[in-house]
């Protein structure tokens, strides 16, 4: 089978069977491409994973793009990304076309009245998990608190928060760097 068609189908299958986001895809990709097909070495895979996590964008698609690009440059990346996207695209389009007709039935409304608070809780819970892995301490806790309040109460765009916190981190890093140099001179 043609390499591109094969990669497309592998990632379609992986995209179809991962419910709940990008991180669920990682073990499937590893089992298939690293262990079974040996298209990519374990070390390269780990490097690409770190890269896919660092750059912005959708993690699952980033992994597909980086692996594809490593193996076959642009078209490798293109077909692997297309494979990852296709199942969710088709399913969500189906939901958009049909769900909206059922949305206003009373039973469906009632089901979603129960679901909505659950979804909010499912978003609130990882906030605290992430706070741990982001090494939030009493020195930098003001950053998430101020960001959240700006967005929530003042309607600030989250994009500005991303830009400001990245730029702030960079400037603080340079400041620290200079301070360290001064200390060394003394």
């Amino acid at each position: 089978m043609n390499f591109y068609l094969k990669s497309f189908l592998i990632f379609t299958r992986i995209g179809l069977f991962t419910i709940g986001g990008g991180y669920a895809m990682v073990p499937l990709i590893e089992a298939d491409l690293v262990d079974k097909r040996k298209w990519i070495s374990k070390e390269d895979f780990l490097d690409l994973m770190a890269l896919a996590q660092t750059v912005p964008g959708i993690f699952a698609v980033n992994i597909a793009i980086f692996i594809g690009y490593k193996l076959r440059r642009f078209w490798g990346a293109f077909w692997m990304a297309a494979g990852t996207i296709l199942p969710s695209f088709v399913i969500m389009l189906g939901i958009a076309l049909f769900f909206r007709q059922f949305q206003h039935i009373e039973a469906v409304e009632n089901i979603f009245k129960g679901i909505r608070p659950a979804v909010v809780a499912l978003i609130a819970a990882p906030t605290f998990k992430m706070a741990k892995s982001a090494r939030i301490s009493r020195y930098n806790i003001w950053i998430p608190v101020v960001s959240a309040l700006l967005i929530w109460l003042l309607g600030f765009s989250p994009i500005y928060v991303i830009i400001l916190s990245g730029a702030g981190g960079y400037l603080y890093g340079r400041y620290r760097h200079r301070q360290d140099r001064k200390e060394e001179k003394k």
Partner: protein
Amino acid sequence: MIILFLKLFYTFFKIGLFGFGGGYAMISMIQGEVVTRYGWLSTSDFTDIIALSQMTPGPIGINSATYVGYVAVVNGGYSHAMGILGSAIATFSVVLPSFILMILISRFFLKYQRHPAVEAVFSGLRPGVVGLLAAAALVLMNGENFGTEHTQQIVSAILFIAVFIASYRYKANPIMLIIGCGILGYLIY
């Protein structure tokens, strides 16, 4: 029509370009643009989409781009076919930045990943992303999602606390939690 397509392209391109920190952090960004800024979806519609995304395969960024692209166009008074085109445009735009970045940086990045400047940027970004997540949860805690009358608000608060504990302390499966709360909602209301 063209203007709406351009807006979709611009919005989802931005979301893809600044979407640091994974799916849940992206929720905050999509909400800021799609609900607060353009009003393409109501808060409750947006919450329903997150619920449906959790239960269906695929990353939440793709799921919401596909859905919003369709709904924004159809609610703007255009046909289903145009809606499908809108959803293709939104989905394409949200992944386009990843492609561009890959081509620009893949050669250099592995070398500079541990560069002090890159690490410094991320020392600011990580706490910022935590704030984004907190904001996503806070913005969604409103009358559309928790109800406006007293009984529904109490039921909603109980469900919220129960799901929070089940997810945070006991790492319960989110799909099961959503299905369970759906059944409870059907029985209670």
